[in-house]
């Protein structure tokens, strides 16, 4: 059974539609992410699930039961807030016990439950500490413990890693995933950071302008995006605008504005003469010459060193800047060198050009 289902959920603020006909099903125990740029409506969607906003239409079900009539404090979904919202006037133990006391648990059992959940998040014995004595990562874990001690059906996480520095964020990604495995609870995670969504999730929904563009596993989104928005937003991609000159057996020949052409796989219903964009992943580009429409020539503009993620920034003769992943056994290459890259046509994805 699905722990959480949304059916054609819509939220309007006056004339502005923040969330439009969104449907999703989150199976039990899944790590589900909603990925989208800021202002796409993902926070509004989460606030509707938590009960802080009421949908204009549609239904939200938790464990199969509609929760639209339930106030936030009666829904068994708990939320980790963007800035965590730990209560500063209570110590760690009181923060975690708050929910248990609201639920009316027997006083004797509370201390034991608090100790157990602190143990599970790897912070045993910090009950007496004040919130401001904790580090960023510890606060994060306390915020999760405060929710998990109540054994929610679904845990909502609203960009909780946003406030952390990069190093800690990388670490917390892995830790969150482990915590989710350990608690075996359904997580609904909201983020604008595609790497967080890809690394942690079983399923990702890409959201744009109030709608879901695509729902799928991280690999599906990365390899088979259904729209230009998804192709550009999930993972890195070189985006080359052009116009379709010819379509033959699912492949489009795209003419570039400054001359030259690119052959790629046509992924939507664009027709000959339409404005399109060609998406090429940096790692799909290989150094060396290729067939007609499957290579571009240019010069090396600069080298971007980033360990295993190093890139060549190449300026093609037709004006585009391309990021090219440097393979492990790359030939020595220097700035200003002439270079040619090629790709397989099925790695160049052609989508109708996005507005704006």
């Amino acid at each position, binding site marked *: 059974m699905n722990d959480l289902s949304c059916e054609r959920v819509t939220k309007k603020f006056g004339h502005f539609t923040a969330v439009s006909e969104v449907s999703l099903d989150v199976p039990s125990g899944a790590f589900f992410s909603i990925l989208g740029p800021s202002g796409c409506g993902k926070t509004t969607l989460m606030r509707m699930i938590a009960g802080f906003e009421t949908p204009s239409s549609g239904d939200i079900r938790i464990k199969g039961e509609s929760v639209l009539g339930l106030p936030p404090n009666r829904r068994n979904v708990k939320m980790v807030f963007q800035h965590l*919202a730990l*209560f500063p*006037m209570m110590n760690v133990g009181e923060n975690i016990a*708050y929910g248990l006391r609201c*639920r009316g648990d027997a006083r004797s059992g509370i201390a034991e439950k608090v100790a157990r959940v602190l143990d599970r998040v790897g912070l045993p014995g910090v009950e007496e500490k004040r919130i401001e004595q904790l580090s960023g990562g510890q606060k994060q874990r306390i915020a999760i413990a405060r929710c998990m001690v109540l054994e929610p059906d679904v845990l909502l996480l609203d960009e909780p890693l946003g406030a952390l520095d990069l190093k800690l964020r990388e670490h917390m990604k892995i830790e969150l995933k482990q915590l989710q495995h350990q608690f075996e609870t359904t997580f609904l995670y909201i983020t604008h950071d595609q790497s967080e969504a890809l690394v942690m999730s079983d399923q990702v929904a890409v959201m744009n302008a109030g709608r879901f563009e695509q729902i799928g596993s991280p690999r599906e989104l990365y390899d088979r995006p259904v729209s230009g928005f998804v192709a550009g937003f999930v993972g890195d991609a070189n985006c080359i605008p052009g116009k379709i000159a010819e379509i033959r057996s699912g492949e489009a020949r795209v003419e570039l504005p400054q001359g030259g052409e690119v052959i790629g796989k046509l992924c939507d219903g664009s027709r000959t003469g339409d404005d399109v964009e060609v998406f090429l992943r940096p790692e799909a580009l290989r150094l060396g010459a290729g067939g007609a429409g499957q290579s571009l020539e240019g010069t090396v503009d600069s080298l971007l060193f980033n360990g295993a993620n190093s890139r060549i920034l190449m300026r093609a003769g037709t004006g585009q800047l391309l990021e090219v992943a440097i393979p492990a056994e790359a030939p020595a290459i220097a700035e200003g060198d002439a270079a040619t890259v090629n790709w397989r046509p099925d790695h160049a994805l052609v989508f109708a050009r996005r507005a704006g």
Partner: protein
Amino acid sequence: MGRSADRLSLVLLFTPFALWIGLLIVLPQLGIGYVSLREKVGVNEFTFGFGNYAAFFEEPIYRNTLLRTAWISILVTALALIMGFPVAYYIAKIAKERSRAGLFLMCLIPLWVSDLVRAYGWILLLRETGVISTTLVSLGIISGPVEMLYNDVTVIIGLVYTVILFMIVPLVSTLQGMDDALLEAGYNLGGSRLTVFRRIIVPYAMPGIVAGCIITFMLTAGSYLTPILLGGKNSSWFTEQIYTQFITRYNWEMGSTFGVLLLIFTSLVVWLGLRLTGQSLATTVAKE
């Protein structure tokens, strides 16, 4: 050179403050303390001792006036808190950004009129021939004019009206610092409205509550105009006793004793209040 310049600027900045504290607060208080220990034995003949204090404790009317003043001041403080908190909460948390400044200003406007004028405003409304009484008579709700001045209720209404602003201002500023996510987290974790209010809003606002209560209590206990004008002879306000000793009886020694006792007693009440509610100045008023 740099250090002596630093020192000079420190001295220059500190001097007005030190002069103000020293000349207008410490020195007069020391003077009052000194006078209060003086006992008159003849024309320009004095001895020193605690006779004036003994006289205060021997005379029930003095004791009772002080206790009554303290009791009504506590009541006024409590009423100001109960009435001020929803107003402050509305301004800080519920009102839209745009209307917030306007609402705050509306709370401040009464301060632009002097205490005296505001007290006369109440007198115009409440006296026997005042607005309320005559309106009620002309509407036939009451048969004859009613005197609504010169009783405790009127004094309390007038005092609450005068001091409530000093409760609202610190409350608004503490509540404004509260992240709305704290409230949502409170509900999300299963708290009812009452639980969220009791366990999250009130503890968070505690610095503002303590500051507001101390200010209103001290202002009320030390006020003179409002209780005298609205309460008349019945008000039995302690500041009135001080006035009488200094001006009418020309007994500066006794007046000074009363002044010292009022200061000690109100400080004691504040201290007791902090102890009873488990607060301290360091964790509330002096916080941040």
